């Protein structure tokens, strides 16, 4: 295979080439490292490259491929978002707070993908502590969108999305608390799946909002997402919120027909908040699914608009408690010559956390504080239930809910960084899915002026299989996911 073909092939295709010995894992890993060397200087998607250990892992994978003990992911290179703890490899959450943190253990997701035989190339850029929708708040600087280097890749898993789009690796991991897998997948033209809350262990994922966080695959195809989800899923004794349920065979049902499945179209998703051109692309995509026999039904999700307010109380509240662990004592940034304990806490935290993180800690602390708890936190938890019930009612009438993953295409760098509230609107179609704990898939649905648009499919709790089946069917009839980016700045 030519270099270009190697770095833009799907993991499923690469796995066949590895098993037939058309290529070796070492060759494939070298091709990825070369692609990173050529373009990461401009894209800035990879923050830590593990060249030596990756080549050693690739060599070990080649032995397994030869002795016949290889699985479907053996020898496939992948990148982890820098939020996953990786043993003896720096894990920073893109924060000055964790600039020197080297975890003594692997996250469960990392160890499971390692066991599956993947080759860890390195770590990807993100918004600091996963708080953002543009990957502009990283201590490593911004990541650029491979489709237009003057635009953001989305966030918070923007490095992961840009890396897959740029041909740095066929697979990457992401995390999604309010849309952080699906929105960057949409903006970078790749496939991203947020599994049902509890499907994937959170052990070793640096916590943001514990009742919302979930890790998932970011890939070139739905087929690859199914393979990767298979390796990531399942109960974990180390995470008491991981679901103790059997994990279905996600690839087995991929080729089943979708005829007769009902797709719910929420009226509230297609209003003034949505770029009309994105709406048109979504309707075109839905027509493809109708041609395959799916039926469209109108549904209502009446609390969509209030989802943002609900999320921006619950997520900061949980973050403010989770981030109280950064006190400058056991790990993380510590200020110089603290005068006393309070000085140690306050200066270490104010120096270590960036602006957006501090902003959310303040809001969260306020929402949980005496006198405001009922008006803010409890109220938000009540509206959260109403949002969840909206979805349950909708799923009485349909099997899957479809809409956009983001209100527009990728926006120019800096366009929203001075207006946090405009940035929060980026997640209007994704964050209610986290509040309800449901699975959501974003897949490439076409282009507007050369920039990718993502179609979001939302499923019933623990029904990732139906989303994957529908997404795969869509990719069998379309070529949007095969397009490769220009790696230039379009809008100078």
């Amino acid at each position: 295979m030519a270099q270009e073909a190697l770095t833009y092939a799907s993991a499923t295709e690469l796995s066949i080439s590895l098993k037939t010995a058309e290529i070796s894992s070492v060759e494939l890993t070298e091709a990825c490292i070369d692609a990173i060397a050529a373009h990461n200087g401009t894209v800035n998607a990879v923050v830590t490259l593990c060249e030596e250990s990756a080549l050693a892992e690739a060599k070990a994978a080649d032995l397994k491929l030869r002795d016949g003990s290889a699985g479907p992911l053996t020898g496939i290179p992948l990148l982890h978002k820098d939020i996953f703890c990786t043993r003896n490899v720096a894990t920073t959450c893109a924060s000055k707070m964790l600039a020197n943190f080297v975890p003594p253990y692997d996250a469960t997701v990392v160890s499971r993908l390692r066991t599956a035989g993947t080759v860890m190339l390195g770590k990807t850029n993100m918004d600091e502590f996963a708080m953002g929708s543009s990957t502009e708040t990283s201590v490593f600087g911004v990541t650029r969108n491979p489709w237009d280097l003057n635009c953001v890749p989305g966030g918070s898993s923007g490095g992961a999305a840009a890396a897959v789009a740029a041909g740095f690796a066929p697979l990457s991991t992401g995390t999604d608390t309010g849309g952080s897998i699906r929105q960057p997948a949409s903006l970078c033209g790749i496939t991203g799946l947020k599994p049902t809350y509890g499907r994937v262990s959170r052990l070793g994922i640096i916590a943001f909002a514990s009742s919302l966080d979930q890790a998932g695959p970011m890939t070139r195809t739905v087929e690859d997402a199914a393979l990767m989800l298979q390796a990531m899923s399942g109960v974990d004794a180390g995470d008491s919120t991981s679901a103790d349920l059997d994990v279905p065979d996600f690839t087995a049902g991929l080729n089943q027909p979708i005829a007769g499945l009902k797709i719910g179209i929420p009226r509230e998703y297609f209003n003034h908040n949505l770029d009309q051109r994105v709406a048109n692309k979504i309707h075109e995509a839905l027509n493809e699914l109708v041609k395959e026999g799916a039926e469209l039904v109108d549904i209502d999700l009446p609390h969509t608009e209030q989802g943002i307010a609900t999320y921006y109380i619950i997520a900061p509240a949980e973050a403010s408690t989770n981030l109280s662990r950064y006190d400058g004592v056991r790990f993380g940034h510590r200020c110089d010559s603290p005068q006393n304990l309070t000085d140690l806490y306050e200066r270490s935290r104010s120096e270590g956390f960036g602006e957006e993180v501090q902003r959310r800690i303040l809001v969260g602390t306020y929402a949980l504080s005496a006198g405001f708890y009922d008006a803010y936190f409890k109220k938000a938890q009540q509206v959260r239930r109403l949002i969840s019930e909206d979805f349950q009612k909708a799923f009485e009438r349909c099997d899957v809910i479809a809409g956009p993953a983001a209100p527009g295409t990728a926006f120019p760098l800096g366009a929203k960084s001075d207006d946090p509230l405009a940035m929060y609107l980026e997640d209007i179609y994704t964050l209610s899915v986290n509040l309800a704990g449901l699975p959501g898939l974003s897949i490439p649905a076409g282009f507007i002026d050369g920039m990718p648009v993502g179609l979001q499919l939302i499923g019933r709790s623990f029904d990732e299989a139906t989303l994957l089946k529908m997404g795969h069917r869509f990719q069998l009839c379309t070529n949007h996911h095969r397009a490769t980016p220009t790696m230039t700045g379009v809008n100078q």
Partner: protein
Amino acid sequence: MPTIPADVLSVAQLARLRIDETALDDVTDRFSRTLELVAQLEEVDTEGVTPMSNPHDMHQRLRADMVTESNQREALQKTAPAVADGFFLVPKVID
């Protein structure tokens, strides 16, 4: 309800954050705007709705009360900013 810099300073104190005086007006402004956004929820009728803290309303599983990990003090303290003799060091607390 308007937010004033003094409110922000008292929340910052609870959160153990120190806000630079030159940034205080800006932080207060953004804080107030976020509170205005979340105030939308006042319009929602939530009478009798049980708060939802977990998407599956699940209860925490408890594991057996058994030792499952060996002592890893050295490995864990490797990432600490200041240690001595196996202890984490903090500034003097008692004079």
